[in-house]
């Protein structure tokens, strides 16, 4: 039985491996095939993920686009949030409300600070509401920059770019309208509201080398962007 060299080698290798072979049999073919399939899937995932996370200038534009097409629907990765470049200024949202009938307009109200204070007021159950002003400020800062850039363009390009920008920020405008409507209803529950408007302001933080100066000596607040009057929507969030 052990006459052939191959059989002898097999027997020797069995002895070398020890006595546990009966307890731990070698994996079957189907398991090896499954392992191969899993390795191929994992390899594809790893390569795609690495290409996705590398800068397009390194991985190549086409490879980057292909990896985005594969991963974006369910495995989208935005790890820039984990390495944030902190802003060196504070942005603020101020709301004005116009009442129906009299047409009276309220003075600007800081709607953001109370929302920002919610998680600190209840750290056990921190609200996610501050995410709204944070996201809207970021988007409308970009929108304001786009508008400024477009306003300096010559006419044919200006109209095209303006239309594209409007399309790009259409959802943000809807969200802002609904957010302001919900806030206005909360601030003025007994009033009949006709319109709302938002002003985005910016105030620079003191530079690092002036951090020990008394507060209020270096900061100036200026208007970044102001929306037109937007119609009020009833019943948001109710």
């Amino acid at each position, binding site marked *: 039985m052990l006459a052939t060299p191959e059989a002898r080698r097999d027997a020797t290798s069995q002895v070398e491996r*020890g006595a*546990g072979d009966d*307890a*731990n049999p070698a994996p079957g073919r189907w398991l090896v095939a499954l392992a191969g399939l899993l390795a191929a899937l994992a390899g594809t995932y790893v390569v795609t993920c690495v290409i996705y996370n590398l800068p397009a200038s390194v991985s190549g534009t086409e490879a980057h686009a292909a990896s985005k097409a594969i991963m974006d629907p369910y495995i989208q990765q935005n790890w820039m949030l984990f390495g944030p470049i902190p802003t060196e200024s504070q942005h603020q949202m101020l709301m004005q409300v116009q009442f129906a009938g009299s047409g009276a307009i309220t003075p600007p109200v800081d709607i953001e600070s109370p929302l920002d204070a919610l998680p600190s007021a209840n750290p056990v159950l921190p*609200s996610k509401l501050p995410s*709204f002003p944070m996201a809207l400020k970021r988007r409308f800062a970009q929108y304001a920059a786009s508008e400024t850039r477009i306003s300096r363009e010559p006419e044919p390009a200006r109209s095209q770019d303006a239309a594209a920008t409007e399309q790009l920020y259409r959802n943000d405008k809807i969200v802002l309208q609904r957010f302001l409507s*919900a806030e206005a209803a909360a601030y003025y529950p007994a009033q009949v509201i006709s319109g709302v408007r938002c002003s985005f302001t910016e105030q620079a933080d003191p530079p690092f080398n002036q*951090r020990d100066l008394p507060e209020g000596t270096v900061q100036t607040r200026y208007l970044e962007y102001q929306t037109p009057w937007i119609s009020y929507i009833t019943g948001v969030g109710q």
Partner: protein
Amino acid sequence: MTAVAAPHRRRGRDLVRDLVARGALTEQRLIGVSLMRVIMGLAAVWFYVSDIGRRQLLWGPDAIVSQGVARSELGRGQFSLYLFTDSQSWFELTFFCGLAIAVCITVFGGRTLSVLHAVFILSIYLRNQLVTEGGDNLVSIVILLFPFTLNNAYLAVGAGKRRERLRQRRAVPSAKVLIHNWACALILFQVSVLYVTAGMWKLIGSVWRDGQAMYFISADPQFSTTPIFSDVMSYAPVGWAVCWFTIVIELVFPLAILCRVALVRKAEVISLEGMHVGIMVFMGLVPFGMIMIAADCLALRDQDYLSVWSKAASLQGRWPAARQLKSSSMGADRDGVRHRPGVDHPRPAARGAEHPHRRCAHPPGPADRPATSTTPRPGTTLGCVEPTKPGNPSIAVAALDSETTWGLPLVS
């Protein structure tokens, strides 16, 4: 030519089979993945509960982000249960089902619940993408791999019986084990990508390199729970140290978790946990911190957890666990073989057990490997180490998987 190539082919085939057997014989990181499940489940419960009174505003049929906007933000192939209809009853049903499933996965775990939890948590994320953050991004990826893992072998109802069943069937390589190990490896890879990318982003930001980033972050009232935080970060050496500590521990994460030295792995994870606890306490990002701590849990191996646990138990002599550990045979079999805790099942003494002076219970062969090895090779007795020394707490981990207290194994 064929005669020469045949042994090579056979050797290659043996190598492949050996590798597959290693991956398919024993589930790795069972404690890590169980901890991950519990903490991520708690974070999900927190996600639901923290705004339960404002759920209409955030996810309801008439929420700030309207259903039309939410639908248009969905990517190819994405869906949300919340967007099936604008019925108020459907919204309430979906929301509270999601909450119940989040509670259930925290308590019970398991593959079916993982699938359900994935559907519900992704649905609520996609219903309103404005209120999600980086931690939720990680969850939405990890949750897709989670159903492939055996995530309820610890810290779950019935975990002790489940481990008993695992021990009984462990002699044979199986597809379930292979898939579990594969999913764990991919989750770890994903977490590594996250940390390295985050570290690189920080490294290319001049405010991080200059050590001013923490100053500007602490100046934002939204990310500062106490004025002490901004005061401390205004002190340049502290701000600089925190910035560079963060960059370094993020960049070395993949190397640290692959390191064979347990101390390096533990030090890396403790550093990361310290950072995330700091984020939770001083920046108020509690759910984010929890999710990141959950992700870090997988970086440690089962042996790491059990050695820490046994060391802690032995330090606290008044704990019943420690007394039991000390009075027991410190987890080794009569033949002095230390089985890998929570992983290997005791095996009968093999050949050579009658030679007590030998380090191994069976005749040492080329396939023997130290007990620190994480994967057994088929056909070998699992992990041969020094014979038991009474009172040595490091050996006490061996018998830890017989019974459970708090879901973590203790000697009965």
